[in-house]
């Protein structure tokens, strides 16, 4: 039967992704689960999120697997003519606060330099995490595109330096603390659960950071694409991911309504 379904879906699904998601999807493409579902998957590395979303919306890429819910919302808000649709949730990679100098967030002294991402969704996420850790407070209306300007109080007078988020692990020695997303941390051999001094947990405050699969709005009813979500949450695939990423890609298998 698998052969038959292969035939009926002779065109493969092109998944655009970046970072560790590439490895995951390349692995998934090779699994029997994929074959059973009759999915032929190809993976392409597209490093720039904006380009990747545009390409997806244009149909040059079928499905993309890299972005968080908040990133997706931002994109859709700014590109009303060329929208994306979320297919389903995949995982939450907790962002962490890392430091080589201090073991606890409370130890970070006044006037310390904290590096956060220069890309807006990661920056906002970082600020929310800092608030959660009790280091700063943010404006009430702080959303997923909030910026440094929206900091209401910074009692310890931290200095913030915005960096390209992929360089986090490399500059960890140069600053007092740095916020690093898990994809980047993993690539830098940092395990958020063990190496960070503070990190996100799955709850309402971090729902915006849950990763999703997205496709063009035109394809929102494509059955094959929807199967990808199911495929991702297969047991053996999840085991593979857990083993490979030390459990730092926390599975989130919730309906999309959970995010709204």
């Amino acid at each position, binding site marked *: 039967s698998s052969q038959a379904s292969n035939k009926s879906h002779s065109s493969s699904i092109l998944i655009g992704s970046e970072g560790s998601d590439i490895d995951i999807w390349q692995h998934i493409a090779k699994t029997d689960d994929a074959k059973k579902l009759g999915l032929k998957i190809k993976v392409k590395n597209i490093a720039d999120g904006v380009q990747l979303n545009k390409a997806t919306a*244009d149909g040059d*890429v079928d499905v993309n697997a890299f972005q968080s819910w908040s990133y997706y919302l931002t994109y859709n808000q700014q590109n009303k003519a060329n929208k994306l649709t979320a297919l389903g949730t995949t995982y939450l990679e907790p962002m962490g606060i890392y430091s080589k100098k201090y073991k606890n967030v409370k130890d970070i002294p006044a006037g310390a330099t904290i590096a956060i991402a220069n890309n807006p969704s990661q920056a906002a996420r970082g600020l929310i995490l800092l608030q959660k850790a009790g280091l700063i407070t943010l404006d009430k209306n702080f959303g997923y595109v909030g910026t440094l300007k929206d900091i209401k109080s910074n009692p310890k007078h931290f200095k913030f330096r915005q960096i390209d988020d992929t360089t986090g692990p490399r500059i960890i020695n140069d600053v007092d603390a740095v916020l690093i997303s898990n994809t980047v941390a993993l690539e830098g051999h940092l395990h958020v659960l063990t190496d960070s001094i503070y990190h996100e947990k799955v709850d309402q405050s971090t729902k915006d950071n849950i990763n999703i699969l997205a496709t063009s709005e035109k394809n929102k009813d494509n059955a094959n694409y929807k199967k990808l979500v199911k495929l991702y949450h297969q047991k053996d695939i999840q085991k593979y991911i857990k083993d490979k990423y030390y459990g730092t890609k926390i599975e989130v298998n919730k309906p999309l309504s959970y995010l709204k």
Partner: protein
Amino acid sequence: MTAIIPNVIAMKGEFIQATWETIYMTLMSAIVSAVLGLLVGVLLVVTQPGGILEDKLTYSVVDKLVNLLRSIPFIILLAVISPLTKFLIGTTVGTTASLVPLIFGIFPFYARQIQNALLDVDHGVIEAAESMGSSPLEIIFRIYLREGLADILRVSIVTVISLIGLTTMAGAIGSGGLGDVAINIGYARFENDITFTAMIIILVLVFAVQLFGDWVVRRVEHQ
């Protein structure tokens, strides 16, 4: 071997493919950029004040366009140009799609280089050709492009090497290539052997271009 470059061995196939992608991107965009760059560079030289087809308006418009294109950061160029890419290539991602931004990223630079190279052609020889009744087109092909050939080749080497550098940035739109491997696989994941190997291959390409270019320059140069 596996001990020193464990990840590389595992990725042999990817490396071969990435090398081809880099060569493909460089070669294709070099060819188109060469044509465009020569065209625009020559246009700048002949229309500039004192040129054989002096034309203030054309010169200042083209001159400004070149600067305009050179001002746009490459990543933004990728985005700005994507409708054109879509129109020309049919998609905005992938190796072939990267050719369009690569061409627009490099040809204005090349045009400026060509302009500088042609400015060094001896004015007396241009005059001699004019005195022999050569038309502007003849002067361009028989004098400028020929007398300036060694210099044109020299700036072409510089440009191709810059272009190889630029291809490493096209990973943003899924161009693949060695730069993508080095940056998005090797560097981002701290797999230094991959970065290192990719860079060695880039280096080999750069040296090949330089050596070949130098050889051609030596062949065409008669003092």
